[in-house]
């Protein structure tokens, strides 16, 4: 863990994921530089979320490697990946519905907490101190994403936009080096999209690299430094937004449809 930081936070090499006969991710290689906003785009069913799931350990890749922070994490379990410093949000929001917002974020702190069963059973002083500290940290994170007023409501009861924010706060609570956002602006109003972009910039300022899947071109072009385009599981383009936008294959596969 004490290696010098590598230039690339995440490197995927020839990553392939098959489901029976379907090749969901086909021989994709890409690398994400430390401190950038990297976007993954592509039409529906292109394999974007599957790629995320392979990175975060929900799926085992059929072949290829995932290297995070100079360390091969191919085939690691989701909780190990989270511990190493990759956090994510989900395309369909997956909050702990019947826990309060602050508890949701405190669950995110789980990996960075040290209380053992004995500490909790007997409420030892160090456990109490940790709880107080973690609650404060959770409140700070809620404030960071702008929903501190809802701290003690059930996650279930928040409006949609705030649920997305809460999910980001929960992911940030794990102290990630790399944050994976799966369609964070889906269903947002233009105003909310602007706020989201501001939030992503704030996250970046914390030294966290952001890897996002997004359909909304304004958001993607507005905040990302580099883009990879997937179509039918294959990487068809990579580069800065302006280049990708002009790529004929991309226009054909993706932008062409929406234009």
């Amino acid at each position, binding site marked *: 863990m004490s290696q010098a930081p590598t230039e690339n936070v995440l490197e995927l090499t020839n990553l392939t994921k098959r489901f029976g006969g379907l090749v969901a991710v086909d021989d994709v290689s890409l690398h994400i530089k430390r401190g950038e906003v990297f976007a993954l785009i592509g039409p529906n069913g292109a394999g974007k979320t599957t790629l995320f799931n392979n990175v975060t350990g*929900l799926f085992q890749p059929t072949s290829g490697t995932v290297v995070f922070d100079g360390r091969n994490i191919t085939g690691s379990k989701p*909780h190990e990946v*989270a511990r190493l410093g990759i956090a994510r949000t989900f395309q369909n929001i997956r*909050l702990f*519905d019947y826990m309060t917002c602050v508890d949701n974020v405190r*669950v995110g702190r789980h990996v960075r907490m040290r209380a053992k069963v004995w500490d909790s059973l*007997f*409420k030892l002083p160090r456990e109490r101190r940790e*709880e107080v500290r973690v609650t404060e940290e959770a409140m700070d994170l809620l404030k960071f994403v702008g929903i501190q007023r809802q701290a003690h409501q059930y996650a279930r009861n928040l409006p949609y936009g705030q649920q997305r924010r809460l999910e980001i706060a929960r992911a940030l609570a794990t102290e990630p080096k790399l944050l994976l956002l799966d369609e964070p602006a889906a269903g947002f109003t233009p105003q909310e999209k602007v706020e989201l972009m501001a939030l992503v910039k704030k996250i970046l300022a914390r030294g966290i690299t952001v890897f996002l899947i997004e359909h909304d071109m304004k958001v993607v072009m507005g905040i990302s430094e580099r883009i990879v385009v997937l179509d039918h599981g294959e990487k068809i383009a990579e580069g800065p937004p302006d280049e990708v936008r002009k790529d004929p294959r991309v226009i054909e596969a993706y932008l062409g449809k929406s234009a």
Partner: protein
Amino acid sequence: MSTRPAGKRRSLLPPIRFRERMRDRDTAIYGVLIIIALIFPLATIFATDSTFLVSQAGHAGTFVLLAIGLNVVVGFAGLLDLGYAAFFAIGAYTYALFASAQLQASPAHHAYHLPFWLMMFVALFVAAAFGAVLGFPTLRLRGDYLAIVTLGFGEIVPQLFFNFDQWTGGINAIGGIDQPSLPAWITGPWAGANGIAILQNFTCKPFWASSAAPCYSFSFDPIAYYVLVLILIVAAVILVTNLHRSRLGRAWMAIREDEVAAAAMGINTVTTKLLAFAIGASFSGFAGAYYGASFGLVSPDQFYFVVSITVLVMVVLGGMGNITGVIVGAIIIYFVLNSLLPSLPSTVESFASNIGLGFLNDRNGDWPGLAGETQRLQFLLYGLILVLMMLLRPQGIFPSRVREQELKHAAVQEEEAVVEMTHA
């Protein structure tokens, strides 16, 4: 947005008040329970001139302990365990084997008489270990599948104790289990063979008794067991409450809500569920040791499926996930099963003759008399009581806030669905 100063303390204020209010209901229930628990022995001994009800209450305490333990597994972590009595059996047999003459006749040829206090902790750890052993291969299963596996485990364990009769005596049971030597601070100076020796020479005439008797008259002292089980329950409640409001408690809740998201947040779902299983099992382990000691006899048929189900009913009916609810549920179900239903035939009989329907009490052909008929219908009535209680209060008697919310939302969603359907 707000004119209030945005200090941290300020923003935390309303939530704290909210929490305190929510906690108040539980505090009130605990208060009432403690007062009842303290008055109960005095009141019943005064009213009935015997300690029978106190020993019943001590026995009920075993089930309260079991319900508190099962609540960790079912209520907190959301794992349906249908074989919980297995761990209870393991705890009881652990104590029974090492605190009776049983092992004399076994291949070990040596009777162990280890002290209760030691064995209570041993039983706790043995049950927890079996919880982990069972959990390790099975916790990858979800929901219904896990329930079936635990059901199987619950069937196997009593059978093992039944068939390993060389060691366990099988159907002959293990009797003559050592009574724990309880310290005077539990038995109290007023009672108990192990109380202060001087007291034994005195005879007392309590204000409610008709004649003088030795101050200690019970070699098997119900009041001591009653106090002991109260202490165990209080300890269990404190420990479980601590767990519930801790890192681990939140991890359990998270897994119950959404296992995938919990794993993505860095929670090791397998070990966390394993801990729920092991901790739940450990409570039933020491409940088992207490049960063996207070009952003096363990046999395999005390741990059949019906025990697992009864404890599950206590948890669900009391209010899954809420400790006070579960305690109240356990007490109510125990009362219904062991007091209300058995006394029902005679109550009905005397009621019938009081209102002039005495002829119903006479046997006549196929009619076994009202009492006999009630006897036969006992478990139908039990079933009816359960169905009615669940219909009237599906969230349990004192539900956890979460269950309350879930059911409210489910109801709203159902209404919305109906509205949509009728508009379509």
